[in-house]
């Protein structure tokens, strides 16, 4: 039943929950309204107007969105770890923490290595979360071309394409993003144990 609750969170289309949560944290939204009403704060908390706060809020909400997926994968993997490993560890006198560190963790990291890598690349290009939550605001004068403090390269690219029609810069940014992502991907993929020590785990 607990798993169904989290799967339910995945089932609701992401853009709806993101749009709603963006309004939840707004200056006149529910959270600020409640805190003001209870007298805990004097002024609305600057979730979206202060650059540092905005970044932390976006990371938090992104984590909130991503945990159910990871949980599904993790439970699937945990159920497949052979239990005789645990039995022999217990017989040898390992405590709970040691078992976790030496058996569970390496196994999990081995199996989810590729997924973590794809997730990293995916988040570099995660347009939906940034755009729907904060549209890249707060805008900042320190950055060129209408970029905001929470803009990713990808949302900046979108703004340049749609509002400024600055196709030249947009194309350059796209190519740079590709170079970085592809480079990191190829480098890390060949280094993670999933590929190097494939035999050890079979």
């Amino acid at each position, binding site marked *: 039943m607990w798993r169904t609750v989290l*799967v339910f*969170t995945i089932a609701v289309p992401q853009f709806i929950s993101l749009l*709603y949560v963006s309004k939840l944290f707004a200056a006149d939204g*529910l959270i600020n309204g409640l805190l003001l*009403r209870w007298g805990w704060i004097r002024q609305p908390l600057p979730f979206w107007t202060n650059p540092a706060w905005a970044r932390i809020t976006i990371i938090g909400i992104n984590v909130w969105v991503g945990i159910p997926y990871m949980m599904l*994968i993790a439970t699937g993997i945990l159920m497949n770890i052979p239990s005789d490993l645990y039995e022999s560890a217990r017989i040898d006198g390992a405590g709970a923490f040691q078992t976790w560190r030496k058996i569970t963790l390496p196994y999990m990291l081995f199996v989810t290595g590729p*997924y973590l890598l*794809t997730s990293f690349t995916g988040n570099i290009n995660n347009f939906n979360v940034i755009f729907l939550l904060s549209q890249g605001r707060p805008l900042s004068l320190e950055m060129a071309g209408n970029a905001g403090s929470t803009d990713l390269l990808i949302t900046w690219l*979108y703004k340049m394409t749609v509002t400024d029609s600055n196709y030249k810069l947009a194309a350059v940014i796209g190519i740079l993003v*590709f170079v970085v992502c592809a480079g990191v991907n190829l480098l890390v993929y060949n280094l993670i144990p999933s590929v190097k020590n494939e035999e050890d785990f079979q």
Partner: protein
Amino acid sequence: MEKRKPPASTAVFRSKSRHERHVNAWVYTLLTGISILWLLPLVLLLLQSFRGESGGQVAYVLPRQWTLKNYAFLFEGARWSIQRLYHTPSALLMTLLSALGAALLSLWFLKKPFSPFAQTPSRLKHLLLLCALWFLLQLVRCLDVSRCDFLQWYRNTLIIAIFCAALQTLMVLSVAYTLSRMRFRGRRLMMNAVLVLGMFPGFLTMIVLYYLLKTLGLTQAGAVPGLILISVASSGMGYYIAKGFFDTIPRALDESARMDGATRLNIFLKIILPMAKPIAIYTVLMGFLAPWGDYVFASYVAFGHKAGYNVAVGLYRWVNTSDYQGYFTRFCAGGVLVALPVTALFMWLQKYYVEGITAGAVKG
């Protein structure tokens, strides 16, 4: 008949130690906390959609005035227009056929053992289901075009989702089967090229695709076919999970079928596909769910032309316009209406989804 007593040693009951009970209490508290944290925004969304007193945001959770007027707003321009059902002979024929399909389908759902339709082949049942859906779609017509935005967007998104699901599955399964079973010159090269091309952010192609679609007339007013074309044409690149699955099916199966004289198509349809049912359903589900959340391409292809938006773009405009104060509760109502069928479908097929992503994560 003598009563059988269960053997005394099967059930071993051990009273939980205090330590175990403590741990259990902590674990359950944590689980409840996590569930609340994850479900809270969704519950709040549902509650806000019933609020009657003001359209914007407020500082309290429970509505003071419970009303359905937000939902009524979404359906405002539509009328149950009966005339259009028999307006032309073809419309009348379509209505009769789909009504017949819906009636037969409801009989099928009764599933009594002596029902005459218990033995209907399942393909016919699927056809009847489609007829029933088509009939339901026909019923709601938009008479006042300027007021039924949400229904138009919903309809667009539904059409895109259905076509994408069907065509994408066709493409992905074909590509995966071909790459898994057949060896031809350039196969490795193509797989590597697709891998590298997949690392480009998709937005780079947005501008080029827009101009391409414009020459074909598939933008703005023709946004729906344009979006379907974009999604389907590049869907073959997502073959990894399906191919991994096909790779686990032994070749010997194929070969013995060929020795018995089956054609490739026969092997694919009759042997491989039934075995790959989980992955096939996962692909269909993914293809169906993707258009509901697609903001970028939908907003660009249907630029400025409101009737061509899909639900994501429309709701985003509602929430972020300058007068969003009036539209917030309507956005919540729209969100609930969008989430309901998608969530229901997802929960019905969640087994396949879980299988799909664990397979994808394990095989990379």
